[in-house]
């Protein structure tokens, strides 16, 4: 507990992060070069690849048009999973939170289902839906659905009862209460869950690609692995990292603009 907490300089943070990353990559590269000079020491690129090798792999992929294609395929699966899973989650959340009987019956079941490690279901989805787009989208849906459902459910349960009473006196029927009170209240929670929902959609899509696909970032990683091409594995992971960072930055940008009525605290 210090008397004064001075704000941390954003530039200092960024500079340190950059230095750490560059330092890590340089050490990795030097370790591999050292191994090349004397195989008793350093880092064996067969197991760990090297930054230059990874970069070369990505450049080759780029030249073949794989990078753009993989990213587009993965994004399309992610978007479909997010939209469909999100809609199911929102509708389920509204219905189960506004009907006490249905809520009492199904909410514990959903908690139970949510405890299933989804990755174990992916081979089943591939069995049911083939190597098609469908198995990837379903895999994303079963992750997104729960995140959005629990956010919607909590958001509606969180509504101040005074607001509902007030709306009813003002003339709101049941459906008006949902539209003017419950849904807008849940919307803040849904938006707040958007970041993790997008992350889960992406994970769902990539994992399903990893299990069986003909394109996509997850497929590229799995394919390289099968070829014992560690550079390709790391290259795929690097592309995934950039993709997640870009998407996450975009979501945060959207989030700040969506909820205008919240006090800026």
């Amino acid at each position, binding site marked *: 507990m210090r008397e004064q907490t001075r704000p941390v300089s954003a530039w200092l943070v960024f500079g340190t992060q950059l230095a750490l990353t560059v330092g890590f990559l340089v050490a990795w590269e030097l370790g591999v070069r050292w191994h090349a000079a004397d195989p008793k020491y350093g880092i064996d690129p067969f197991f760990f690849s090297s930054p230059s090798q990874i970069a070369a792999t990505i450049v080759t992929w780029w030249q073949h048009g794989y990078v753009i294609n993989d990213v587009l395929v993965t994004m399309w699966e992610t978007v479909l999973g997010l939209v469909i899973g999100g809609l199911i989650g929102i509708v389920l959340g509204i219905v189960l939170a506004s009907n006490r009987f249905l809520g009492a019956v199904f909410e514990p079941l959903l908690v139970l289902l949510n405890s299933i490690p989804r990755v174990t279901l992916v081979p089943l989805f591939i069995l049911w839906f083939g190597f098609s787009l469908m198995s990837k989208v379903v895999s994303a849906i079963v992750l997104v659905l729960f995140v959005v459902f629990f956010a919607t459910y909590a958001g509606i349960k969180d509504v*101040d009862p005074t607001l509902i*009473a007030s709306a009813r*006196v003002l003339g709101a029927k049941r459906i008006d209460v949902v539209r003017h009170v419950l849904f807008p209240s849940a*919307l803040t929670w849904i938006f707040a869950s958007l970041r993790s929902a997008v992350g889960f959609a992406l994970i769902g899509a990539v994992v399903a690609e990893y299990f069986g696909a003909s394109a996509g970032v997850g497929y590229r990683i799995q394919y390289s692995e099968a070829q014992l091409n560690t550079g390709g594995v790391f290259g795929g992971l690097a592309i995934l990292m950039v993709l997640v960072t870009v998407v996450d930055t975009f979501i945060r940008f959207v989030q700040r603009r969506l909820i205008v009525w919240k*006090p800026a605290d």
Partner: protein
Amino acid sequence: MTSSGPPPIIAFRGVTKTFESGYVALHGVDFAIAAERFVALVGPSGCGKSTILSLAAGLDRPSDGTVSVRGTPVDGITDGVGFLFQRDALLPWKTVRDNVLLPLQLRGAGSADARRRAAEWIGRVGLRGFEASFPHQLSGGMRKRAALAQTLVYDPEILLMDEPFSALDVQTRNLMEAELLGLWQGSRKTVIFVTHDLEEAIALADEVLVMTAGPGRIKSRYDVPLPRPRDFEQVRFDPRFTELYSKMWNDLRDEVLESYARANAAG
């Protein structure tokens, strides 16, 4: 129980309310309110004052007895009733304009007419220029004004007010009380105003009902003989005001002490 005169607009007959928890909020409440009267309901905290308003609005049902409005037992939300809550009840995701428009939309008013009426009421409560503000951008007093506009815009015949100004600072509160009287005067609306503040009750009302500590009953009833329109600043110095105050306080004191003792025993 009822005085002679016009038939009551609101009548409680032997009303008992027991909550699911087993708590008895009201026990054998009997009273009737004549149309166009401003009635204050005072009592210690926890005496079921708010429950009476919920029952009159149709937000809740009595466990026993009947609540009738305009001679008909209440079933569902009562028609033509406005409710001002103690807590903020404006929808935080709607602007002042949209909040005031809401009851008109819900009642299916044409949009041009609704907009005109909403704008008029926003002006009458002194919020012109704040139409596009969200509730969190307004002060407590301004939020109360907006809530008042939201309620009065659809011209309800009955106004139920649950300690609406208790969260405000004293100056804002007095200002709002004076404005409420100004808006009510000549509006021919019936008001039930719940408060635990005797001064507020006497200054505003035609009639004051004093309740017992929970389970609440009506303990006594007073007419307020002060002429209208009342000068809100001066009325507190009227000898009739002080006389009434001391009589009512005599009634209320025992109930407050009892409710206080119970709260301590429970706490």
